[in-house]
């Protein structure tokens, strides 16, 4: 005989019952979103694709000079993503809508970190280098970062970029929401400040939601009835209004449940007060003590055998 199966089932059952019992008593997961955060509302029906926001972002954040000038609109011929040298990019989408002269109507979409209300990156970050600030910013503290890139795995918007070509001190690069400007200098984020057509509205998130729904109500023909970022992944600080469905503009369809919820609930159920390691340690200790007692009586090594 090999291992005594009855014993094995016994251990497994006890362990299973202990886990099941604890999950019932665990606290329900709660959002840690700040109650009074700021955000930006991007009205895609207003954006003209001038790339001034890209230029301002580059300037106020001291990012490296781009390969092609911000006045070069042929850049828009190719779809881009934010990268380690660019916190924000504007893309041009055509959805098949045409104007009175049979010209395709472009929709311009500005991309940057969405500054989620319950950010997956901050929940995932091994050292808490990413954190949700009281004003809504998802802030990156390079002094804690070890470069594991779990934030990039976690981000549902595929935003954080990495300085892969720095061998020793690479950084995670993403929109800072101009945290210093907004918090200390009382200024607007660079992009919101410069936008010549007021496509970007900066304000309290709760106010922005009112503005957004108000615009939809007053112009039902102009907008679809969806504020992207109001509910996606539990809400984001950056939100969008659009004339065409978001999935036609490269926006990913996301659940309303905050991304960290499942993982945090499981971790909390299993490891609150370290109860499960302690119980397991106790159980194994008991088994070890009992089997030692038994094998001392029966002599060592009788349990094994041929198959």
């Amino acid at each position, binding site marked *: 005989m090999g291992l005594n199966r009855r014993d094995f089932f016994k251990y497994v059952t006890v362990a299973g019952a202990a886990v099941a019992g604890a999950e019932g008593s665990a606290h329900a997961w709660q959002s840690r979103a700040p109650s009074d955060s700021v955000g930006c509302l991007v009205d895609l029906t207003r954006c003209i694709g001038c790339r001034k926001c890209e230029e301002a972002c580059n300037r106020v954040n001291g990012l490296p000079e781009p390969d092609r000038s911000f006045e070069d609109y042929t850049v828009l011929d190719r779809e881009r993503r934010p990268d380690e040298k660019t916190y924000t990019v504007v893309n041009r989408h055509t959805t098949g809508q045409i104007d009175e002269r049979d010209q395709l109507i472009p929709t311009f979409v500005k991309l940057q970190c969405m500054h989620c209300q319950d950010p997956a990156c901050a929940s995932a970050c091994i050292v808490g280098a990413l954190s949700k600030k009281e004003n809504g910013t998802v802030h990156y503290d390079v002094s804690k970062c070890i470069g594991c890139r779990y934030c*990039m795995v976690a981000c549902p918007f595929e935003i954080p970029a990495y300085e892969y070509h*720095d061998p020793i001190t*690479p950084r995670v690069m993403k929109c800072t929401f101009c945290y210093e400007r907004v918090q200390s200098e009382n200024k607007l984020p660079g992009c919101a400040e410069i936008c010549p057509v007021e496509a970007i509205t900066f304000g309290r998130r709760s106010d922005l939601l009112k503005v957004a729904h108000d615009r939809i109500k007053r112009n039902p023909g102009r907008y679809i009835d969806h504020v992207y970022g109001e509910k996606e992944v539990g809400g984001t600080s950056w939100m969008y209004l659009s004339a065409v469905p978001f999935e036609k503009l490269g926006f990913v369809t996301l659940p309303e449940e905050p991304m960290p919820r499942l993982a945090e609930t499981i971790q909390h159920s299993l490891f609150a007060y370290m109860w499960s*390691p302690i119980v397991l*340690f106790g159980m194994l200790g008991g088994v070890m003590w009992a089997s030692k007692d038994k*094998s001392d009586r029966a002599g060592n090594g*009788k349990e094994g055998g*041929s*198959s």
Partner: protein
Amino acid sequence: MSHQAAPVNAKFWTPGVVVLAVLMAAGAAAILARFIGGIGYVSNLTTARPWGLWIGVDVASGVALAAGGFTTAFLAHIIGRHYYEPVVRPALLTAMLGYTFVVLGLLVDIGRSWAIWKPMLYWNPTSVLFEVAMCVMFYLNVLYIEFLPIVVERFKGRVRLPGPLSGLNTPVEAILRLLDAVLPKIMWLFIIAGVVLSCMHQSSLGSLMLIAPTKLHPLWYTPILPLLFLTSAIAVGYPMVVFEATLATTSMKLDSEMKVLGPLTRITIFLLGLYLALKVGDMVVRGTYIYLFDFTAQTNAFLVEMIVGVIVPWLMLLSPAVRRSRRWLFTACTMIVGGVLVNRLNVFVIGYRPPISEANYSPAIGEILVTVGLIAALMFIYRFLVTVLPVLNKPEQEVSA
């Protein structure tokens, strides 16, 4: 203990070992390039695909395949099946080296290798990765402590340091004697801690991907991913012991230990069966079998993982003839080991598909060289250590019951 382990007396520089050394040199060159030109210089990792071969194989599979350490410790030392004692030491050595190389792999993969200590200072309790890192750190130390008695056994009373160091002979001898007196009394603490820590981080490695529901293919994304990771790690423990013992005994012309390995894999029938049942049950409950025959690269990888890596070897193990045949047992166990490797690769690399950029990834030659070099170095050190320390069984000795 009733079995006899002793340093192996075999020729060290065989052609196989020379090949290992060449692979190590190639890996070292790739690692050098990574620390000169950056991760981007040697890898195909991008914004959308931040984890690749290194995390999938060096870290995730490395941890899973080191599970022989805690599963044999549980069997022989916690529930007292001393019959299996002969495989405990090789499994412990494999686990110790496995985890050491997990950390070495991480040092290559993380951007700021010099900052690897920072999680000890900056805690983020919501982070699954934080918990994994803490467990791996503690467990690595537990493994070193569990391994210490083997070193003590070899050198106690025989400390002969060369030349100028000979003055240290007496103090080193005193330390070994102290360890020899203290370790047996407290070892039970570390043996239990090793099993507890293993259960914690083996499962949490599966929880890592729960934060990315839109990226991991539904065939793998399930709330019971941590349970699947734990059960598969436990199930692969003994097959890994068979795999590694067969390689070592063949390579160094030792006794095959079939008397122990055969019965050991009887337990695997139950453990792997449990994993298979959970995996199939999960697929049925969530209705993900609808993807099975999409015949994309991802779903094909799932079929390979399940059929070649779990179902076929499980059926093979059911046959007593397979369990008695050294060749067939090795084949079945290799398939199980490969199945867990493919599973980890599927969860972290192949099944991972960022929905916005839909970026593809295949490892760069530099990544492959690093991974192969690290594995070669592990095997090289294993071979070296078993010739110096009493890990493997004495060849002429019958396995005493």
